[in-house]
């Protein structure tokens, strides 16, 4: 299984390590020509403004948009989630693929970044939130809430897209890696499992 990881900038190498750990092949994608046949896609954390600028050179995101709409299992974390959100407070929408409203830097600056408990599907663990955005509104009933931190929505899923505001790739805990393995294999429709 080949997993494409958007590698403009950010924590793409951490995601790449997670993919290797579960026995799949990570493929770092920077330009359209890097786009081989891929079985799943990850949009990592980083700075969404920088990613959008780097995209202007390659136009890669519009190609990824089509692949996502075609139904490839897609995981996004932090800045990656901002790129796929339908509405962005404090920024602009990029390639809307999930019906959520996201608020950039919603917790404040780096000094407000934290580790916090997250209920992620059936499991509870501690994950990092780094200058994280907030999923401030769910915009359609097609969206499921899949992760919560103290009653705040920190993970949402719609069709083939799972969007998180925290960083499971910095933990690589057993539950996450098991979930990731299943998601890549069967994640065409997240609600089915």
């Amino acid at each position, binding site marked *: 299984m080949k997993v494409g990881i958007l590698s403009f900038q950010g924590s793409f190498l951490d995601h790449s390590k997670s993919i290797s750990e579960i026995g799949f092949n990570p493929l770092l994608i920077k330009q359209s020509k890097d786009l081989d046949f891929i079985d799943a896609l990850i949009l990592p954390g*980083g700075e969404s403004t920088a990613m959008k600028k780097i995209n202007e050179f390659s136009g890669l995101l519009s190609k990824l948009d089509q692949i996502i709409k075609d139904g490839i299992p897609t995981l996004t974390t932090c800045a990656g989630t901002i790129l796929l959100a339908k509405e962005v407070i404090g920024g602009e929408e990029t390639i809307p693929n999930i019906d959520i409203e996201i608020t950039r830097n919603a917790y404040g*600056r780096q000094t407000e970044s934290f580790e916090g408990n997250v209920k992620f599907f059936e499991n509870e663990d501690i994950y990092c939130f780094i200058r994280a955005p907030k999923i401030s509104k769910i915009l359609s009933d097609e969206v499921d809430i899949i992760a919560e931190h103290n009653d705040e929505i920190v993970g949402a899923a719609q069709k083939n897209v799972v969007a998180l505001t925290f960083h499971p790739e910095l933990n690589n805990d057993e539950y996450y890696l098991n979930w990731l393995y299943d998601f890549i294999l069967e994640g065409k429709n997240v609600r089915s499992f």
Partner: protein
Amino acid sequence: MKIESTDKVKKGLAEMLKGGVIMDVVNAEQAKIAEKSGAVAVMALERIPADIRADGGVARMSSVSVIQEVMESVSIPVMAKARIGHFVEAQMLDSLGIDFIDESEVLTPADEVNHINKHNFKAPFVCGATGLGEATRRIAEGASMIRTKGEAGTGNVVEAVRHMRTITNELNEVIACDEHEIVALSKKFRAPLNVLEEIKELNKLPVVNFAAGGIATPADAALMMQLGCDGVFVGSGIFKSGDPSERAEAIVIATTNFNDPKVLAEVSKNLGEPMVGINIDTLSEEEKLARRGW
């Protein structure tokens, strides 16, 4: 449960900056240009290193108003510099809610023996290094990110290359060493043993390592990335050049596509004049900023 400013959260921000370009800016206008050009963070300064070098005198932490002006103008992380060992400047920056503190040799050192104990701060720290010993001592003091010192304000990449090659070679020596040799290496590099043990376990530095000091062109940025840096700082190189916005964008694209010479050639077209560089040989030992730090 919610705990702020943990070691993991501090190192985590550095992870998010990887593959990106951090640009020196002196006001809100430059900060906005940097953000628009794709910078992952900006360094708020009163004077860029080339001007600090030209002006001489004591270089201190930038004025609070300049730092706050920059913090209010952009949505990307904002860094600021404190003098080596000047923990009160660092406390002030921390209280302003700065995203990253650079304990920097570009400013005049405040302590000729000690660096700041960086564990006690909410904000993460980045520190310069010329070799593995310096890098690991800074990590032991609590740095969440390392950068090469290079030679700031010269537009000459040679020192950054020297420092990166030194760090890599020394790192490889530690990774390859027999378990019985590690104490001797700790002594040889003046490197804290616990950090060397961590390196041996991870097979790499435990923090992100950026290039800094003399990067002026897209090719310089790509060179440092090919040498194994995780990202680049560009100081005087952008706003001392003919067309800052174009050059900033080109360096951002080059840093992402560092392995693609066609892209590097394309973004380097029609860039206008780069900053005028300084040959390191013409600097006296006293003029070399990389000598600062212990």
